């Protein structure tokens, strides 16, 4: 890849990066798009889009099952992304990477294949109060099917995982610890390595499943250093196409797991009576995979690699600190839900404007071309804990500028003007 945005130093060249993202030129409601909904999905660099076009215009073929040139090339390129992703997240081997549709399917794969085979009545599944539904509902279903119990590790006032509670609540009955690396509402980062240490000590038979949907796009990831057993991601949140996710799993666990979906490509030999399974990772990739998008995702990983994940993290710490400082200073009617300490948080910022429903905030911002998200962000239980019916969420990425934070602030000033009388009332 030759990206114009590569820099040797720690600072991203944001204007150069922005030139790689054609959508940032879009005019929304008469204004240049200010895209602050990156926790929902990121925008895409032309390098990824070009890879898709190149694939469909000159390389398209089904993989794995044919010797013709197009098919052999497509197979190689598909497997190349597996290698890139393994390197990107520090996986010991590409065979431990399974492509899925998204994080949700990756978690379902673990819950269904490992969970239903290994979780028994009376076992405990431990999660946190901050889980996204995708790393929560599948485990509720495992608990229902097996008779296991559910435990939720509490978060503190700063939105941080309470490690004392982890010490107290992870125990010999614990069979699964399923935990979000970075909260998609609070932006806070869970101390995974520490949780793994506690789990290994207190519950040696338990697996630690990490939902990396929000962390992999924004933090340097090394699954070997984290020490966890499974790690799930979504390509669409990290400059990649929609329709691709991945599960990394420890080889010994994956090799012992029964298939998840079944059909073509995941079998060894099939007879009318019975079937043998292919080795990993094929065993878990039934049917024609999302070939084009997996190949294009390779270009996204190249792009992030070229920037350097340290530089990405550095940029996001800066813009998040600027955003928190600016919004707190200029908008006293705002409530925030997590610590400001960018050592332990990323660029997802949830907030509320006193007495104004998040939907109205996002509506008024949208009128100015500013895209934020309003709602419960697939985290209903967390919102109960926060005592908020819903929240506004602004979330940053590599192409966001401090000027866009300023635009957000101006937009909030409009909200404050329109809803001045409601805001003036005490908190409802």
């Amino acid at each position, binding site marked *: 890849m030759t990206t114009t945005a590569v820099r040797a130093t720690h600072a991203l060249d944001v204007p150069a990066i922005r030139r790689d993202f054609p959508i940032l030129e879009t005019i929304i*409601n008469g204004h240049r798009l200010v895209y602050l909904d990156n926790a929902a999905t990121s925008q895409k660099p032309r390098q990824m889009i070009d890879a898709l076009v190149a694939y469909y215009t000159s390389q398209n073929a089904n993989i794995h099952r044919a010797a013709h040139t197009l098919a052999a090339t497509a197979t190689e390129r598909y497997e190349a992304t597996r290698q890139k992703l393994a390197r990107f997240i520090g996986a010991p081997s590409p065979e431990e990477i399974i492509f899925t549709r998204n994080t949700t399917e990756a978690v379902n794969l673990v819950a269904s294949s490992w969970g239903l085979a290994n979780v028994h009545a009376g076992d405990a599944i431990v999660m946190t109060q901050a889980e996204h539904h995708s790393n929560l509902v599948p485990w509720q279903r495992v608990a229902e099917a097996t008779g296991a119990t559910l435990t939720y590790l509490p978060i503190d006032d700063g939105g941080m995982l309470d490690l004392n509670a982890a010490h107290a609540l992870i125990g010999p009955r614990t069979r699964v610890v399923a935990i979000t690396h970075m909260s998609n509402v609070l932006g806070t980062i869970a101390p995974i390595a520490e949780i793994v240490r506690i789990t290994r000590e207190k519950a040696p038979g338990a697996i630690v499943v990490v939902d990396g949907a929000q962390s992999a796009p924004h933090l340097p990831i090394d699954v070997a250093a984290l020490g966890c057993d499974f790690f799930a991601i979504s390509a669409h949140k990290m400059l990649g196409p929609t329709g691709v996710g991945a599960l990394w799993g420890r080889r010994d666990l994956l090799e012992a797991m029964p298939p998840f979906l079944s059909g073509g490509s995941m079998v060894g030999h099939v007879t009318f009576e019975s079937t043998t399974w292919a080795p990993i990772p094929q065993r878990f990739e039934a049917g024609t995979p999302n070939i084009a998008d997996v190949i294009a995702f390779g270009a996204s990983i190249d792009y992030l690699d070229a920037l350097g994940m340290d530089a990405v993290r550095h940029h996001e710490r800066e813009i998040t600190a600027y955003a928190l400082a600016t919004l707190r200073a200029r908008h006293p009617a705002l409530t925030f839900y997590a610590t400001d300490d960018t050592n332990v948080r990323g660029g997802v910022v949830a907030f509320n404007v006193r007495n*104004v*429903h*998040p*939907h*109205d905030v996002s*509506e*008024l911002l949208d*009128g*100015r071309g500013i895209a934020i998200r*309003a*709602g*419960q962000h697939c985290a209903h239980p967390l*919102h109960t804990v926060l005592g908020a*019916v*819903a929240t506004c969420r602004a979330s940053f990425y590599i192409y966001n500028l401090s000027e866009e934070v300023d635009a957000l602030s101006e937009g909030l000033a*409009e909200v404050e*003007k*329109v*809803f001045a*009388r*409601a805001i003036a*009332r005490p908190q*409802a």
Partner: protein
Amino acid sequence: MSEQNPLYQDIILDYYEFPRNRGRVDGADATCRGHNPSCGDDLTVSVKVVDGTIGSVMWDGHACAISEASASMMTEAVLDTPTESARAWVRTVRAAITGRGESDPAIDLGDADALRVVNNRPARVKCALLAWETLDEALTLAAAIESRAHTADGDA
């Protein structure tokens, strides 16, 4: 009023800031909850029917300005009207907002006419309709309870 966004007209903001009939009807015949999971709108409508006429109606909960304003307008519109006219109101508001279905030409929407601003905004149509659809459900429920009560009387 916002210069940029026609949704937030004074009349809507006024209803939002000064809610009408917010709360729960004591001894309601029916109470229904309307939920819009995508944005978190969550309204409860309670209603008491006396001799085929809506004797009390209130709404409660938290929702966006459009939803809450619409809920207040709804209670003003249908209070003290026969349940049949309340149903006609629901249909007429639905037709005004979505352009689909029949409206009752006899009904003058009054303040509720402002809800037309959500036309062509699928994500907001749900907000504007939430209280009305929930009223509709509550009236259906009240009627069902009533008819069951009558059947029970007849049986006795």
